[in-house]
Every structure is written in structure tokens, then in C-alpha cells.
């Protein structure tokens, strides 16, 4: 694999405000990378700098080894799907898809044929003659995708393209986009603030926060081995327990409320070091009585949120808020206001040093 897109020390400032702070990233050819982060974290700004609509204050953007920092958007050969699709309302679906070919001097007959082929690929065979307003949201989305891909761009950028769709359609489009992206092998950057979208679609997730990259890793790595408390809290649900390492060799730590805690991992830590321990709610076992052979923590149940197949039990262990995910069938053992025991395996505890 060769690095296809290379961002080096991208910085963007607006007056005194730093929107992007030394963002560096390398994306492989054919890779599907998601930029994930809360609004204002810099993910969209980075996308706009890659597209050429924003100018970076510093750093460089390279595609296939060539710097594109000095190129105007129309010279970059990058396909973009915008949030609201940005289809030309005065053109039919097939004319929309033909447009980038038209701009590249492809003749009408051949270009329209190519556009029709691309529409078939995105599952819109026979819809070419319709205007955007005669298409559903999902269909418009497909046209926008076809238009961004028909000219074989060096990169495909997707700017929160699923935000306007309802839940079922969104899941369907997630699968569709993945399928099309794989079949064409196009290097893709996908911007979203929806973590489940990021989890299900990406080869790699880049988590943005305050203009910096917090972590860039495969989805499961991000979930199970977050490098910062922000990533741990932002991705999925988490119990973050502040603790002090008591014995680095034996891998034990201590929290003032919960007492001694065991942790896993291979990171080299030192005694007395302040860390954060991450325990995912689904890794916590809830029981009426203490379980033998484990460290048990007493928790007072405050709220139970039932989802049918599972339930979220929210409670408090001393001054520490706790969230426990239990199977729907198991929730009957406990009521709001009662006290119970929670416990977990050593392997479920991940240490975060930042």
C-alpha cells in the first residue's frame, strides 16, 4: 500500500482562533477514512482544505505524491458529495452526472452514456430523465454520488451526506456507499459526527477535537483502545474512573471511592502515576450479591432505561456515576433505588494515560 493522500502539518487560523493545529495524516489508496468529531472540531475545515475551498494557513496537501495546495478547486479532480447533495435543479439526473464529463470535454452522446452507466451502478437505472425535485432524498443522494464518481476522481469526499435521511434509509445508504466505494476502489474521506456511521463504514477513523487529531485508528481499536479520555467518552458509552497506579508490576491501581482496581494492557506505567481507567458498560456484570473471586463495587441504582433487548442501568458508586448495560431479560433482578453489586474482569479495564 502506498500513501495516496498526505496531509502534513495543516494549520488554519482565523484571526486569533486556531481552527486546525498541525494536522498530519496519511491515507492509503482505496482506503475509507472517516473524520469523526463534534461540530467545530475541525473535521469539515480539513475536508474543505483538501477540496480547495479553504486555504490552509500552513502545511501541505499531497495527492499521489503531488502537492495540490496551489491548485484551484476545479483543477483538483476531487469528487465531493455535499451535505444537501447540491444537485443542479435545472438539470435532469443524467445531465447532473454528465456535467463533470461535459466540463472535461467529453462529447454529449458518449458522456450521457457514461452517466447512465454510473446511474445504473448506484441503482438508479431508468431515473435519468427526472429532475432532482422529482427524486426522493435517498435517490438524490445516489445521483450526487454518481456525479462525484463518474469522472474517476483521485479522491472522494463525503461531507455528512447521510444527515438529511431518516434512520432506515441511512442504514441502507451506508451499505450502498460502502459497496460502491469498494467496487470502484476509490480513496474516500467521509465526514460525520455520527459514531455508529463511522464504526460501520470505515477502514479507519480519525477523531478530531479542538482542531487536533486525537486518534487515528481502525474502528475496533478506537473503541477498545482509546488513547485519550476524549476519545473514550466520545465513542460509545463509557465509565471513566480516575485512579492512581499503586503497583505497576502487579497492574493494580486505586480510586478513592472504589478502592483497589485491577487493569490490563502492556503499557509501561510507574507507581503513583495518575491515569483514567475505562470500563465499557457492556463489560460490567450486575448482580444482587458479590461475585466470588472478583473485586465487587456497591452501586445504588438511580434510573433504568429499557430498550427491549437490553437496558441501561444508571447509578452511583459513592460519588462516581456508573453506567451498566444489561440484557433485557436480566433487568428484572433490580429496581430503581435499590443497591446492588457491579463487577468486571481485569481484561475489560483499559488504562488511558492522557
Amino acid at each position: 500500500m502506498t500513501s495516496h493522500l498526505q496531509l502534513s502539518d495543516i494549520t488554519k487560523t482565523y484571526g486569533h482562533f486556531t481552527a486546525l493545529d498541525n494536522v498530519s495524516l496519511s491515507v492509503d489508496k482505496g482506503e475509507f477514512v472517516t473524520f469523526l468529531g463534534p461540530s467545530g472540531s475541525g473535521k469539515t475545515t480539513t475536508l474543505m482544505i483538501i477540496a480547495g475551498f479553504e486555504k490552509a494557513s500552513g502545511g501541505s496537501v499531497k495527492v499521489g505524491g503531488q502537492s495540490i495546495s496551489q491548485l484551484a478547486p476545479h483543477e483538483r479532480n476531487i469528487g465531493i458529495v455535499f451535505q444537501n447533495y447540491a444537485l443542479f435543479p435545472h438539470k435532469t439526473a443524467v445531465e447532473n452526472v454528465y456535467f463533470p464529463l461535459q466540463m472535461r470535454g467529453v462529447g454529449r452522446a458518449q458522456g450521457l452514456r457514461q452517466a447512465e452507466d454510473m446511474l445504473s451502478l448506484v441503482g438508479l437505472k431508468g431515473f435519468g430523465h427526472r429532475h432532482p425535485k422529482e427524486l426522493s432524498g435517498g435517490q438524490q443522494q445516489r445521483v450526487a454520488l454518481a456525479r462525484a464518481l463518474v469522472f474517476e476522481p483521485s479522491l472522494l469526499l463525503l461531507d455528512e451526506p447521510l444527515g438529511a435521511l431518516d434512520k432506515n434509509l441511512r442504514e441502507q445508504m451506508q451499505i450502498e456507499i460502502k459497496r460502491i466505494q469498494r467496487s470502484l476502489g476509490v480513496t474516500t474521506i467521509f465526514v460525520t459526527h455520527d459514531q455508529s456511521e463511522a464504526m460501520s463504514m470505515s477502514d479507519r477513523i480519525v477523531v478530531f477535537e479542538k482542531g487536533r487529531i486525537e486518534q487515528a485508528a481502525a474502528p475496533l481499536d478506537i473503541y477498545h483502545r482509546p488513547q485519550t479520555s476524549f476519545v473514550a467518552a466520545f465513542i460509545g458509552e463509557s465509565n471513566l474512573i480516575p485512579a492512581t497506579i499503586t503497583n505497576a508490576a502487579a497492574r493494580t491501581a486505586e480510586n478513592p471511592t472504589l478502592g483497589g482496581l485491577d487493569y490490563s494492557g502492556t503499557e509501561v506505567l510507574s507507581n503513583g502515576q495518575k491515569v483514567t481507567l475505562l470500563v465499557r458498560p457492556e463489560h460490567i456484570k450486575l448482580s444482587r450479591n458479590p461475585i466470588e473471586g472478583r473485586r465487587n463495587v456497591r452501586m445504588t441504582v438511580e434510573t433504568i432505561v429499557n430498550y427491549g433487548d437490553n437496558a441501561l442501568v444508571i447509578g452511583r458508586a459513592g460519588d462516581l456515576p456508573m453506567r451498566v448495560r444489561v440484557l433485557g431479560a436480566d433487568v428484572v433482578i433490580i429496581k430503581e433505588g435499590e443497591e446492588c453489586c457491579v463487577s468486571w474482569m481485569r481484561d475489560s479495564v483499559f488504562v488511558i494515560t492522557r
Partner: protein
Amino acid sequence: MGVSLSKLTEKTDIWPWLLLAPLGVYMLIFFVVPLADVAIMSFVEPKVSFANYQKVLTGALYQRVFLNTFLTAAFVTLCCLAVGYPLAYLMAHSKPRTAMLILLLVTMSFWTSFLVRTYAWMVLLGNNGPLIAFLQMIGIEQPPQLLFTRFSSTLAMVHILAPYMIMNIYSVMKKIDPALIRSAESLGAKGWSLFRHVYLPLTAPGIANGSVLVFVICLGFYVTPVLLGSPREQMIAGLIGHQVDEFLAFGLGSAMAMVLLVITLVILTIYHRRFGLDKLWG
């Protein structure tokens, strides 16, 4: 209280009509009745016949004036478009301060009575006016006649009607989603091709609105062509005025007015079928 809500709303059903009543009565007395009077007069003055219409539709003078009116209106519309489109573009796409300044200039000119503006042009273009003086100063011995020509009336009408064009195009330009332009750029469009394939078609509704408005208003323009134009190149409203004021030919004048009205309505109907009249006012 014992009065149910549905009864209350049932009772209030006549309220909208009551509120409309004053305007309705006003329109009836000052618009519908006089218009009907003109329509009737066109058939009964000086005696009951179609003679007036026959004259209007077949007489060489009237045909020439109608044709001249249409050509003038079309030309004024084109000029307004040529002046208005770039100006609207500047307003829609420059920095807020610049945009405000242009908007202010356009609306100020728009709010000034067109009679005042017409007289202002008389002063500017007159034989003792500053423009002639300037032409003499730069060495043109015999400056051309500016006032009371087709040039002066067209210039003034373009000036008076351009704001209609500008505001219509501006309101459409302002509403264009910037993502459309960005998306066109990302797809490889720039400069002229971006304008021709994306920007121009997106602003077409504004051009259509503005053009119809300017054209229709121009068809019935009276004061400006009469005061500034050449007497030999009359427009239809001026001719109607002549018939009524000087020849007391009320029937003939009325017939001409009715023909103009019908033509205007036909244009508006065609426009409505194509674009929808409701969009005409932005």
C-alpha cells in the same frame, strides 16, 4: 361561558370578508367601474359600432405606434438587463458594505418620484445642460441634439425601470445555494462555463421576472416618453393621451387602451403558464 370554540370560529368566518370590504369597495369605485366605462366607451363613442377597433387595428399610424411601443419596450428591457444583471451580481456577491451601498443607491433612485427623475434628465440633457456644455468643452462644435430624442426617452426609461430588474435578479441570486457553485467547481467548472451551465440557468427565473415586469410597465409608459421623447416616435400611451386631450376622441382612445390591456394580459398569461405569476414579486 358556554360558547364552544367551533361556534366562535364559525361566527368569525365572515370577518375576513368584512376586513376586505373597504378595499373591495374602493377597487370597485376607482378601478372596476372606470375600467368598465372605458371598455363601454370604446364600443359606443361616438356611436355604437366596432369602428374604433377597426381603426386601431388597421390604421397605419396606430400599427406603427404599437410596433414602436413594443420595440421600445423590448429594447428598454434588454438595456435594463444589460445594466441590471452585473449590478445585481455585484450586490449579491460583494462584501456586505459594498452591497449595502449599491442597494442604497438603487433603492434611493427607486423611491424618487419618476416625474422628478424625468425632469432631472431634462435638465441634464437639455441644450443648456451640463452634458452639452461638457461636449462643447472637449471641442465638439455642434453637439448632437440629446433631449426630445429616442435616445433621451430610452435612457430615462432604463434608469426608471432598471431597479425592477435589479431587485428581481438580486433576490434570485441571493437565494442561490453557495454549495451549488462549490459543487460545480469541484466537478471541474470555472469561469465562463460555470456561468453558462450553472449560474445563468439558476438566475433565469430572476431574468424572466424582471424582464416581464419591465416590459409590461414600459408598454404603458406615459410621462417619460411624452416629456423626453421625440414627438415623431410616439408610444401608445402618449397617443392615447393625444386622442383624449386634444382630439376628444374618447372612443378611439378607449379602444387603443383596451387593445393595450388585452396584449398585456396575454403576455402575463403566457408568463403565468410558464413560470407562475405569484413569483413575479419575489
